């Protein structure tokens, strides 16, 4: 017994608790040096693409931080630095295109935005004219997406309620399967489906409503999936607490489960709206694009913002391309406004946890 006690293994590595550390400003300094080096190499070797300069700077930064840390702080800290710098690099690579896109759209589109642009249609405006606007497309977009949401949101949320709260066995798996299949339907296929069924077989005219049907088909799986996930997150204890109070199941779902999940459901519906608001293909097939103002989605061709952007850009004149950028900017702003409103509603109605 006593002999085995004397053969204790030596403690792992250094027993001192303090170690050499790089100062806190090292990553920032390394980033500056890496950018300088990346630009320097780019200039020296006459590389024209700024993207390649940036990529070289990122690689130099990640490798440099690892080498520096391995030299001063040891291997374990070096691995930690490596992971941290990779996460930062990935974050910057992801955010740069986003900022670039917004900056580009604002820079190119802000010039044409004025009261005239927002309140006039393209009726009788030539491609080379600098007046004209997107009022007709804005109306079309809002009406078509609104109709699609009015159809897809209730149906989608109720489908998710069925899947989570009521569904059992075969029917449940079948519904889940078809929702998964619908997720993969390309927008042009949804457009062709509505075109062949609604317009060719049922002989209906090209209208904003026909476009809304296709958009609703595209929204449905997103709404079902996200709502389903949010309903699954509602703790079972809340359902049981409500049932144990003698509240019927349907009322439990409406008054307890859905309000608890409301924030997530609203976010899911907003994602679906954001997705279909930018759809061009089904709109091209079904709404047909009309340069005048038609506020009635149930009769006659309409326009739509993505379609407007597409048409204006393909006209190819300076004036029309400026209008296309303006349309893109308005589309982004509209989706963002809808998003903010929905988030406001979700926050207002969200579970009142201790803040």
């Amino acid at each position, binding site marked *: 017994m006593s002999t085995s006690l004397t053969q204790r293994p030596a403690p792992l590595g250094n027993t001192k608790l303090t170690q050499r550390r790089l100062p806190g400003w090292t990553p920032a300094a390394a980033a500056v040096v890496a950018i300088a080096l990346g630009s320097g190499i780019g200039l020296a070797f006459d590389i024209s693409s700024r993207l390649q300069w940036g990529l070289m700077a990122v690689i130099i930064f990640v490798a440099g931080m690892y080498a520096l840390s391995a030299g001063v702080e040891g291997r374990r800290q070096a691995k930690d630095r490596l992971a941290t710098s990779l996460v930062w690099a990935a974050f910057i690579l992801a955010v740069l295109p986003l900022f670039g896109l917004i900056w580009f759209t604002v820079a190119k589109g802000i010039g044409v935005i004025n009261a005239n642009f927002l309140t006039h249609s393209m009726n009788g405006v030539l491609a080379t004219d600098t007046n004209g606007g997107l009022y007709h497309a804005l109306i079309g977009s809002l009406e078509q997406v609104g109709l699609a949401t009015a159809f897809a949101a209730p149906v989608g949320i109720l489908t998710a309620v069925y899947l989570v709260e009521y569904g059992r066995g075969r029917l449940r798996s079948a519904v889940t399967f078809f929702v998964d299949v619908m997720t993969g339907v390309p927008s042009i296929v949804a457009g062709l489906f509505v075109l062949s069924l609604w317009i060719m077989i049922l002989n209906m005219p090209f209208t904003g409503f026909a476009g809304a049907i296709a958009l609703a088909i595209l929204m449905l799986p997103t709404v079902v999936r996200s709502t389903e996930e949010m309903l699954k997150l509602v703790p079972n204890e809340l359902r049981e*607490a409500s049932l144990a109070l003698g509240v019927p199941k349907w009322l439990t779902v409406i008054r307890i489960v859905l309000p608890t999940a409301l924030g997530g459901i609203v976010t899911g519906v907003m994602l679906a709206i954001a997705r279909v608001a930018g759809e061009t293909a089904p709109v091209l097939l079904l709404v047909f694009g009309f340069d005048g103002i038609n506020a009635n989605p149930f009769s006659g061709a309409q326009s739509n913002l993505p379609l407007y952007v597409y048409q204006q850009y393909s006209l190819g004149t300076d004036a029309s391309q400026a209008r296309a950028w303006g349309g893109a900017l308005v589309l982004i702003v509209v989706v963002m406004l809808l998003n903010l409103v929905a988030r406001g509603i979700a926050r207002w109605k969200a579970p009142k946890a201790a803040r």
Partner: protein
Amino acid sequence: MAKRIDVSGLNAYYGTFRAVEDISMTVEPRSVTAFIGPSGCGKSTFLRTLNRMHEVIPGARVEGKVMLDDENLYGGGVDPVAVRRTVGMVFQRPNPFPTMSIRENVAAGLRLNGVRNKKVIDEAVERSLMGANLWNEVKDRLDRPGAGLSGGQQQRLCIARAIAVEPQVLLMDEPCSALDPISTLAIEDLIGQLKERFTIVIVTHNMQQAARVSDRTAFFNLAAVGQPGRLIEIDATEKIFSNPSVQATEDYISGRFG
């Protein structure tokens, strides 16, 4: 308003697995009956058969008779929703509704069952919170969220919510297991007061608690893991804790088991 529960030949299943086997017992009105026993012996499952909450779990079913005075809870034409209004339940973890304020939580049972009269609801809220010894702590902040209270307060809020619908019987499934000793004491005191008005059944792992709060104690056990749980004996609490009739009970209570 308190009612007697008379169980005979009750079996509870999860799918094909029999969790509770052949239980017969009587729960006296206006008294506290405690269920004790090792984990997995079917105490909670049996408790949930007393207000038809067992069948909420998919695949779960019950055989046998549960008489509430002269009505069989499992008889033909019995509405489980009506049963749950008569037999209320408090759960192991406090579960106030997160979207609702303190007032709305207590009023939830009444509101969701169609009571609209504001005066009736306000009176019920005050009465129930007083009944749950919570009124003085929350009367100035009834419109704050219920989830912002401490754990012990949340559990008393849940008790207030359960008694607001004026049930005949109150089932408590380890109501103090997530609480500190002071909150536990508050709830035990409350149980002592509530038994004047309700028939109370409480599941607990804490034998001192069973000895402190209950009038009668039922000991459950299971022969082995995977076997159904059974009722070993039920008797007056003093008798169970001083001189039980079955050796297994004495072994469990004195810490010698297995």
